[in-house]
């Protein structure tokens, strides 16, 4: 351990919900996207699942909203160090979308992509079992454009760069294919509890 002379830090708060190396951003919700926030109306939004599925399918705003509503209430963790507690997102569970397209047995990974061209890769297992959503509401209001509105992917158990903003589609694959930050040196999975920030962590 390399102790920094004269550094004591903030008063310690024991918070079992805080992954290692993270701090509580409280009221803040920093925005860290690397691209221009797109001018994307809900009526122009679409979401497609394709790749290794039985029936590729594209939803628009109305057909996506016709699926059963599902909410996430819990915490989110950003690789830059902040975590945010007790956030509320509304949308549809990704399971409901996957039930329509029916993943093939050979599908093991997914590449999510945004209307901006941003991409993020995930193991398929991280997107199923009630752990991932397509979200269009935050705290009961429409999701703001800088936070990914009209709709973003939400995978709250992984670092938040995996939760692709302005989600346009997910392609199922039989191998892992690095996305935008993953090609820029970030960890392929990004589990905050194992502090998987950068490749090699």
């Amino acid at each position: 351990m390399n102790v920094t002379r004269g550094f004591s830090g903030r008063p310690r708060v024991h918070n079992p919900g805080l992954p290692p190396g993270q701090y509580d951003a409280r009221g803040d919700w920093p925005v860290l996207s690397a691209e221009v926030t797109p001018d994307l109306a809900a009526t122009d939004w679409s979401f497609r699942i394709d790749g290794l599925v039985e029936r590729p399918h594209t939803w628009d705003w109305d057909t996506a909203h016709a699926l059963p509503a599902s909410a996430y209430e819990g915490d989110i963790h950003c690789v830059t160090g902040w975590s945010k507690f007790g956030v509320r997102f509304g949308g549809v569970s990704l399971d409901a979308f996957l039930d329509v397209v029916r993943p093939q047995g050979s599908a093991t990974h997914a590449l999510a992509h945004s209307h901006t061209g941003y991409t993020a890769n995930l193991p398929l297992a991280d997107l199923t079992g009630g752990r991932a959503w397509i979200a269009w509401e935050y705290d009961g209001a429409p999701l703001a454009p800088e936070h990914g509105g009209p709709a973003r992917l939400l995978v709250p158990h992984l670092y938040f760069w995996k939760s692709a903003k302005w989600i346009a589609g997910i392609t199922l694959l039989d191998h892992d294919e690095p996305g935008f930050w993953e090609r820029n040196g970030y960890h392929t999975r990004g589990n905050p509890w194992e502090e998987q920030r950068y490749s090699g962590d």
Partner: protein
Amino acid sequence: MTETVTGTTTPLTRFAVPGRIAVNGPTETAWQTATLTEIRRETPHAATFRLAVPAWAGHLPGQHLMLRLTAADGYAAQRHYSIASAPDDSGHIELTLDRVPGGEVSGWFHTVARPGDTIEVRGPLSGFFAWPGDRPALLLGAGSGVVPLMSMVRHHRARGLAFPLRMLVSARSPEELIYASELGAETTPVFTRSAPPGVAVGRMTAAHVAPLLAEPPVGGWEAYVCGSNGFAEHASRLLVAAGQPVERIRIERFG
């Protein structure tokens, strides 16, 4: 992107990682001890901290690092900081930190730190905001957002690069303009609260950006925008409105 998707088309990627930039390897992700060798005041709220990092792997202008301070009981605070210095082989790098009110890490740097202190760094990180000096660069920054852009300006000068490089930098006042004495003809400062006599006060506008985009250099500009999220949203919209292609705008938001 390799076309390895089975049975479908690869999603279109207008906005992609430049293949020209190598990403971090094992050296870059390991924590290293850095020794503070010099502190230089830049403005009433910002100072530059020079660090000796003997095993520094080298960086490209625009990249950042992660920095960690550790208390005696093992508690650690880590934050990202852009690298202000141009790449060189001095075994030193420089960071410029704003003093954030109540800030845990910047507060330590501004009130406790002195030459001889050691801290830990890992990096350089992230290739997306890097400028290797291979194309014309249009830089828009505000506040401490000028830090990674200054690394590009310094690199451009140190190498005597022929590509055009222009910078628009927004500060509250001339006193708050970081690196003021180092800025040259490539830079146009914009003052939001108070300005020298005869200079307009106000935020960056289309009038600042339009002339640069009216006559873009051969091959067009690669635009780099850095600062708070509010500034990044504003400046990137100005660029798009002036005709800069979105896929050639790279943004580093400090949160």
